[in-house]
């Protein structure tokens, strides 16, 4: 009998701590498969952040560093500058990257650090129990916006659009993990991002719209539909930056 499907070697055997229905597991798998397929798993270094994905250092089958909240891009800078020949990526949620770590992500991008950022945006603080994130949609109910988010607590922060304005960076794309085709598309985007790093093109970031059915108080299926039908209204999918294709560079 031939093997048609097996677990990727890019992940350890540690069971995920994610809630049933959460798409973090899928995104982990995509990253791990890409590292394995590109043949870079053995020289990759995972930079874990704080939030639901805090244990990423236990899941990816690579050397890893766990970072203080929001500081993963700074930690990645320190690692990559010492080991320019290694593949360094951060795996960060929207609270970590867009709120407390806004300064670190912007400046790492602006320095065009040759790292890859996997930015998982589920528009909520999952780990702490469902509070408002900077990416929370207008009218979205969270434990700290019980009446729905209003303008007084800020607008949903569009990180991909913002990061895409950085002068030198290589690649920015927003994808979603909502169904088969979009997941395969996300994998292609992640692959592209790591290829940018391998080719020393510089900073790449893949934002993945992801579900938090527990925090959103929806069923897993409703959550996936929420990504497709609602989140994408605020966070349109697409490539926001691909320097290689720019004629003026």
């Amino acid at each position, binding site marked *: 009998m031939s093997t048609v499907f097996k677990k990727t070697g890019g992940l350890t055997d540690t069971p995920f701590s994610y809630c049933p229905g959460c798409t973090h597991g899928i995104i982990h798998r995509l990253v791990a498969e890409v590292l394995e397929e590109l043949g870079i798993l053995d020289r990759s270094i995972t930079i874990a952040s704080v939030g639901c994905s805090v244990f990423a250092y236990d899941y990816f089958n*690579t050397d890893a560093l766990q*970072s203080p909240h929001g*500081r993963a891009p700074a930690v990645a800078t320190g690692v990559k500058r*010492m080991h320019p020949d*290694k593949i360094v990526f951060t795996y960060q949620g929207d609270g970590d990257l867009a709120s407390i770590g806004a300064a*670190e992500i912007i400046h790492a991008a602006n320095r065009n650090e040759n790292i890859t950022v996997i930015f998982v945006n589920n528009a909520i603080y999952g780990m702490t129990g469902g509070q408002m994130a900077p990416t929370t949609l207008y009218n979205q109910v969270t434990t700290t916006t019980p009446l729905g988010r209003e303008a007084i607590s800020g607008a949903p922060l569009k990180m991909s659009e913002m990061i895409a304005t950085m002068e030198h960076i290589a690649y920015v794309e927003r994808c979603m993990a909502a169904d088969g085709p979009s997941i395969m598309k996300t994998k292609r985007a992640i692959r592209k991002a790591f290829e940018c790093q391998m080719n020393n093109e510089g900073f790449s970031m893949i934002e993945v719209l992801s579900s938090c059915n527990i925090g959103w108080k929806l069923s897993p299926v409703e959550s996936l539909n929420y990504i497709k039908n609602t989140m994408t209204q605020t966070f349109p999918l697409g490539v926001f930056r691909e320097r290689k294709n720019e004629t003026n560079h």
Partner: protein
Amino acid sequence: MSKVEFLKGNEAIAKAALNYGLEAFFGYPITPQNELIETMSNIMPANGRVFVQAESEIAAINMVYGAAGAGARVMTSSSSVGIALKQEGISFCAGSELPCVIVSVSRSGPGLGGILPAQSDYHQSVYGGGNGDYRVIVLAPASVQEAVDDVGKAFVLAEKYRNPTMVLLDGAIAQMMASVKLPTEPLPYPDNTSWAASGAAKERGSRNVINSLYLDPTKLYAHNQKLHAKYREIAKNEAWLIDHQPESHDGAIIAYGTSAKIALGAVQRLKDEHGLNVKCIQLRTLWPFPKQALKEAIKGMKFALVAEMSMGQLFQDVLAFTRTDTVIGYVGKAGGEIITSDDIVLGYLAQMGGEQIEHSV
């Protein structure tokens, strides 16, 4: 043997660190340590080493965490307000047992305070502001040469114990130019293979993970016990003071850093002008605090005076750690006023016959 050079404290520290074999420096501008990062921006890239001007002190210490975690000999520097911002990262470095050197050039506080020299960051350095049961080794040089020597010692201790190590000086030592000899040879590099997350899992045959998260209290308690055993070892081996006049028994002046330098002059005046044989005890490590050596150095004395450029932070610890019949006095200034030998001499004469006071709050 290196030649004598005439260098600013900040510049000397930077050049010494490079010569000791520094591989990466991450910093952020703040007075009075600016010449340190300016010098680094020049000499590090010129020697094929890493220099990054970070977006904040927070980012700088996290770059240090990353580089140290990946196995590099790494350093950052800052001053009071900036060191406050680094505390979270320092706690992470301690929790993950990463060797790194932090040069703290202290100015006056609290808050934005001022930019002139002070020693009001004794608590900040020794007790830290990061969370958890952790310790940072703190060396306290009193001159540019001692600062240069301490940077080397800091790398050795940081790497020996895999622990963040701080060199605490004040703006006076950083800003002054002095005759100084720099090191000429790099320190030997330790073998980090067993723990550094250097992206070499294949060669090593196993993953290395840098982490301080343990949700299981049994594991975290065990981790704390392991750290504490290491701290006890450091306390036993590395506590350090200099008894400048071991033959003097009338009394003592206890100080560190710039205050110790000034106390040396005051001791001479007490002898010349008042016929008192008073010794200057210079604390060279603030953590570990040289408790036993200090107790012995003031044994049998009626009076010892703590001289510091803060409002009694060191005094409080001397009182707590010596617990002797010796009356401990305090003389100090803060806010950027530099203590003078007049302050110390007059303070000594005024308090030497008195009762124990509780100066600290």
